[in-house]
């Protein structure tokens, strides 16, 4: 095998590789001998086919295989000998392939840049944290309280108002005939909820217990039942009870509805949840700051093909969003060229950080356990209730999907690793500041 370097420019390398004919010959012969044991040719018992015949019949297909294997092997060997670390699969261009003269091919590689990783201990990162204020806990409680929709019977006689819940019996009639699905008894209807067709609830406002009313309403034109579309009908309604929403008492009983012993425990639970939210947000911010730092402290060239691929991915997304009429507020009032430049910058940053994190992970021997991948897959599966099985099958049969899921896990691990060794100082900020989303 003869390797000559024909191009070394930036991160691009091109090699011309020639494999001699006798190497090919031995490979081909070995393959054919292997094959001769298996092929069946009429007129011969299996394994008794003369070599000459086998060669004549199968040379073409064997040559193809040998070519592929040879190119693969020799390019790998060339890469190994030179200690190259290619950024992705090398591009191979076969120039000539003859059994008599051997193989000549060129190989285009883009190598990974040499990255010198800065000492993490010198990195100073401010991790924003926020204290959970008592008001926040109270707010959380209040939200829970509003969500629990308890109602109580109105004892005094008063007309129904919006927001009340009426217990009604109703029969819908189309030209005097009851129609299907138009009747109900002891139905709880919240006035103003818009649950029924327009006009129904409004006409019940002001009704009192024991009232029997005939409501004239018209079904909307886009009603789902074909025979009722746009039809004027009447409803005979009997109001049996008026209930008003009740503010749940904030006491231990309220907490028990959530499976906790006391109000105090509920408060602690809410506080804990908010704290977790803040911590996650803080971590996200810290990660961002860290990535920014890494971005500025590590300057190296990025393999153009990788950058190009990343940019194309972003760009396709952008075009799709544009076609769908969505607009990124960040890009308002910018021309396509400006947008392109902006995205180029983002692509470069992403690839650079990706490479850097990969390098750091490699240097510090950060591994992903199968368990972690499995946990991540289960997390994904949980998002598709009822289809968990299919999701799991999809992952077990699809290597690409697993690779995709690996990426973020790896990134997180590397970031965590850096954060443990970097100088991290906590800085207290207001919750609003903490939760404010960053634009990339």
């Amino acid at each position: 095998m003869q390797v000559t370097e024909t191009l070394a420019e930036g991160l691009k390398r091109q090699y011309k590789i020639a494999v001699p004919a006798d190497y090919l010959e031995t490979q081909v012969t070995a393959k054919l001998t292997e094959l001769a044991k298996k092929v069946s040719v009429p007129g011969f018992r299996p394994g008794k086919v003369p070599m000459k015949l086998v060669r004549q019949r199968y040379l073409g297909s064997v040559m193809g295989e040998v070519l592929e294997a040879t190119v693969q092997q020799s390019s790998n060997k060339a890469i190994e000998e030179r200690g190259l670390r290619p950024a992705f699969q090398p591009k191979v261009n076969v120039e000539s392939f003859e059994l008599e003269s051997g193989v000549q091919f060129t190989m285009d590689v883009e190598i990974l840049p040499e990255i010198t990783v800065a000492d993490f201990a010198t990195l100073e990162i401010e991790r924003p944290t926020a204290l959970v204020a008592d008001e926040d806990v109270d707010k959380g409680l209040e939200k829970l309280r509003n969500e629990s929709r308890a109602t109580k019977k109105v004892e005094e006689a008063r007309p129904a108002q919006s927001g009340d819940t009426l217990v009604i019996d109703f029969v819908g009639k189309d030209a005097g005939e009851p129609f299907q699905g138009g009747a109900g008894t002891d139905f709880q209807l919240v006035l103003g909820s818009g649950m029924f067709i327009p006009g129904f609830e409004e006409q019940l406002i002001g009704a009192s217990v024991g009232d029997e009313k005939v409501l004239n309403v018209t079904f909307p034109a886009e009603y789902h039942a074909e025979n009722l579309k746009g039809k004027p009908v009447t409803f005979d309604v009997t109001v049996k009870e008026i209930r008003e929403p009740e503010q749940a008492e904030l006491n231990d009983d309220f907490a028990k509805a959530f499976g906790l012993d006391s109000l105090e425990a509920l408060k602690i639970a809410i506080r804990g949840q908010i704290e977790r939210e803040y911590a996650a947000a803080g971590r996200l911010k810290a990660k961002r700051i860290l990535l920014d730092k890494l971005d500025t402290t590590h300057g190296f060239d990025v393999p153009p093909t990788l950058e190009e691929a990343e940019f194309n991915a972003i760009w396709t997304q952008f075009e799709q969003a544009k076609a769908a009429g969505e607009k990124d507020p960040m890009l308002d009032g910018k021309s396509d060229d400006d947008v392109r430049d902006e995205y180029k910058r983002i692509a470069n940053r992403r690839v650079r950080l990706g490479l850097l994190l990969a390098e750091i992970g490699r240097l510090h021997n950060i591994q992903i356990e199968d368990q972690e991948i499995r946990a991540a897959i289960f997390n994904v599966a949980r998002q598709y209730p009822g289809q968990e099985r299919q999701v799991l099958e999809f992952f077990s049969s699809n290597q690409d999907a697993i690779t995709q899921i690996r990426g973020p896990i790896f990134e997180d691990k590397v970031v965590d690793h850096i954060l443990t060794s970097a100088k991290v100082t906590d800085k207290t900020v207001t919750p609003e500041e903490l939760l404010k989303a960053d634009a990339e």
Partner: protein
Amino acid sequence: MSEAKKGMTLSRERAYDIILSPVITEKATMISDKNFVTFKVLLDATKPEIKAAVEMVFGVTVKAVNTVTVKGKRKLFKGRPGKRSDYKKAMVKLADGQTIDLTTGV
């Protein structure tokens, strides 16, 4: 017959008709070491005819021709007794140093 021994004349068409196909089997490969080439030929072809035909078609010198009539196997076809066709096999000995590439076809 005397005519045949001296070298018979036969039409080109007859020559191409006589030689049906090469026989490529283990047995045929074995005798090819001794410079024999094996063909399937017309049942009614004679040795002199075969010799002349092979010489004409492949442009070689034939030293000897051995023939055998291979009887068709008796088989049941759709439950009725039947018989595969007989054929004549000719082992042709070529002059030293001459070969015929059987796979290239006539």
